[in-house]
């Protein structure tokens, strides 16, 4: 039994060390790898509706401004807050921040992807520790039981991922850009549902993002990325506009179904159209 405990401690140390020194394979690692005092002109935060929508390299080409897409699949406002806090903690200078908000305004929850990708840093990054303390139901087990976090999250930070990190296997995503294109065109009967009818009174993450931006002199803009035509958005968007004064609505900006992969996600061609719209409407 003692030798098993020792083995777990040893494996924990080994995995953690690999992740600490790894070439970034996800956006959390990429943020942690940014140099202190690095300057970013534009940063986009959001879910896959940013990751698959905003082509940073296109913005850079057209404006000459350094742009980063930190959109992550399934990310909620809690995850966006942690990304912003990590950037600020790392003394990265940001000029303008763009946060994609839609129905996620109603949630004060987080994404399991960001949570599990943050776990290797639970013991050596105070921002991540605070974040996990707040969002992780298994925080104490993950913090105190050696190797527990790697075993219970084996799908994302287990053996396959640690080996890929150890051999510096590059991710398919170019994090300098952060954009991940989607292929294909939505089905004819792909229009499903709409935004909720009711909106939450407030969202603590929005309050926190506003506060961080104010304290660090960052200009923040909230926006809603496009949905396909037919998707019901109007009443919710109106309510969202009232909650967020610096909000830009793109929800109906792209009417062509051929530019969508599904009703909530643009395809690569649609992303290019949307990026050009962003440049124009946000004065980038």
């Amino acid at each position: 039994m003692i030798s098993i405990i020792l083995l777990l401690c040893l494996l924990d140390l080994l995995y953690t060390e690999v992740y600490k020194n790894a070439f970034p394979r996800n956006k959390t690692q990429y943020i942690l790898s940014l140099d202190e005092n690095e300057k970013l002109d534009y940063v986009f935060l959001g879910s896959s509706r940013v990751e698959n929508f905003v082509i940073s390299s296109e913005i850079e080409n057209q404006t000459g401004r350094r742009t980063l897409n930190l959109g992550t699949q399934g990310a909620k406002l809690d995850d966006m807050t942690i990304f912003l806090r990590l950037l600020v903690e790392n003394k990265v200078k940001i000029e303008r921040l763009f946060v994609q908000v839609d129905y996620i305004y109603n949630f004060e929850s987080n994404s399991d992807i960001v949570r599990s990708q943050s776990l290797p840093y639970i013991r050596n990054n105070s921002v991540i520790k605070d974040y996990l303390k707040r969002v992780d139901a298994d925080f104490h087990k993950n913090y105190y039981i050696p190797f527990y976090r790697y075993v219970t999250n084996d799908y994302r930070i287990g053996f396959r991922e640690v080996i890929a990190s150890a051999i510096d296997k590059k991710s398919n995503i170019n994090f300098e850009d952060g954009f991940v294109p989607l292929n294909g065109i939505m089905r004819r009967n792909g229009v499903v549902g709409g935004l909720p009818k009711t909106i939450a009174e407030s969202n603590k993450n929005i309050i926190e993002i506003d506060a961080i931006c104010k304290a660090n002199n960052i200009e923040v803009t909230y926006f809603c990325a496009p949905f396909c035509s037919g998707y019901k958005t109007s009443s919710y968007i109106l309510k969202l506009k009232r909650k967020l004064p610096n909000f830009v609505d793109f929800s109906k900006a792209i009417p062509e179904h051929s530019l969508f992969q599904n009703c909530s996600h643009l395809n690569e061609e649609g992303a290019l159209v949307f990026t050009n719209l962003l440049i124009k409407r946000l004065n980038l």
Partner: protein
Amino acid sequence: MFFNSFTFLLFFSVVFFVYWFPLKRNINKQNIFLLLASYVFYGWWDWRFLTLIAFSTVVDFYCGKYLGAEKKQAKRKLILGISLVVNLGLLGFFKYYNFFIESWVELWSEMGVHVNLYSVKIILPVGISFYTFQTMSYTIDVYRNKIEPTHSFINFAAFVSFFPQLVAGPIERASHLLPQFSKKRVFDYNTAVSGSHLIVWGLFKKIVIADTCATYVNVIFDDYHNMNSLSLLLGAVYFSFQIYGDFSGYSDIAIGVSRLLGFDLKQNFNYPYFSRNIAEFWRKWHISLSTWFRDYLYIPLGGSRGSLALTIRNVFIIFAVSGFWHGANWTFVFWGFLHALYFLPLLLFNKNREYLDTVSLSLNKNGLIQGVNIIFTFLLVALAWVFFRANTINDAFAYLEHLVTNQIFTIQYLSIERYAVEALLLLSSFVFAEWFSKKRETPFFGKLCSFNLGLTILAIIVLGVYSTHSDFIYFQF
């Protein structure tokens, strides 16, 4: 409560301590404690179904008792009939009621007649097929005067509900397990070590082999329309290892846990994928069920003593019943039927008693033939497993049709962000380990015992699948 859970680790630690320390000197108290522990183990899943086990226990205990005392054959038959009706009635209701209702309605609607019969939402009690067969074997053996009825209700109840093998076997015979409850158990260090080795190897088979294969199998079977021939072939191979790792892993843990409590359970798997024909496969796969059907169904039907036609009929009956035992779905019945078809040529050419020895391959013609036979038998078995795994019989045929007609053999990248062939590396190591330990229970022997044990524990920790908890497949039966 699952063997591969932290709850079971805690549960068994307490059981082990209480059983071997405060209760060490009193066999009756040990048996009462085992009975209580078994009911806690089962009740952890759903306490309501404890009444079923208790009812089955009471019925069979008294049927056994009256059978022992009764001399008149007609009355003995009646008592046996009561036991069979109660046991098979419970099994039939909980497991097959909806299947028969739905099949009946479907049959009439095929003929254009609308029949309005209602199915009932029935929860299948875990392990009902296992403990029902175990208790039935007791009354049948008492009826056949093969064993004496027990006079201890506690011993009998503990035998029926013995927690290591309660929910997924091995299906024990009363003649083997029941007397062990009457004997004083002595803690034996070597037995405990071998039991611990079996537990480690069983956990490896379940958490590393079966659960890894499951991640591939689920995505391949659920999306078989978009898979190419290579991925579909791999899907069938992976499922073969998933079900083997899952079920034989459970049996290993059950036998290992029993040994730690001083009990001996029978072997349930004997490296079945190294079989050289289907008959050998069935002597090595789920041995406790195969021998149950042999002793309580095949032989009473006449076995192979009658004409060839009668023997063939009996073979088809036991394979069909075996398929049906697994579940109320035509996929299982067809799986059994397919195995009967595989068995048929061996029966016709009188080859079903070949290969009673342990396989060993040598570099000569005979070795080559045996090697080819092993691969051929495995592919036949893997093909049949497609029916076992598919949701419907139409899905199974569509899967196989796509496998044959697609004819694209490129390596696909699956939606689980892995290449379809990746698990082959792990499976090759597993097959290698099994091959070199096929004359033993586990690969933990000889000079490399500690090294192999350490490596396996490391693999369980590092390669195990924990993020998606998978139940044991055979729990559903």
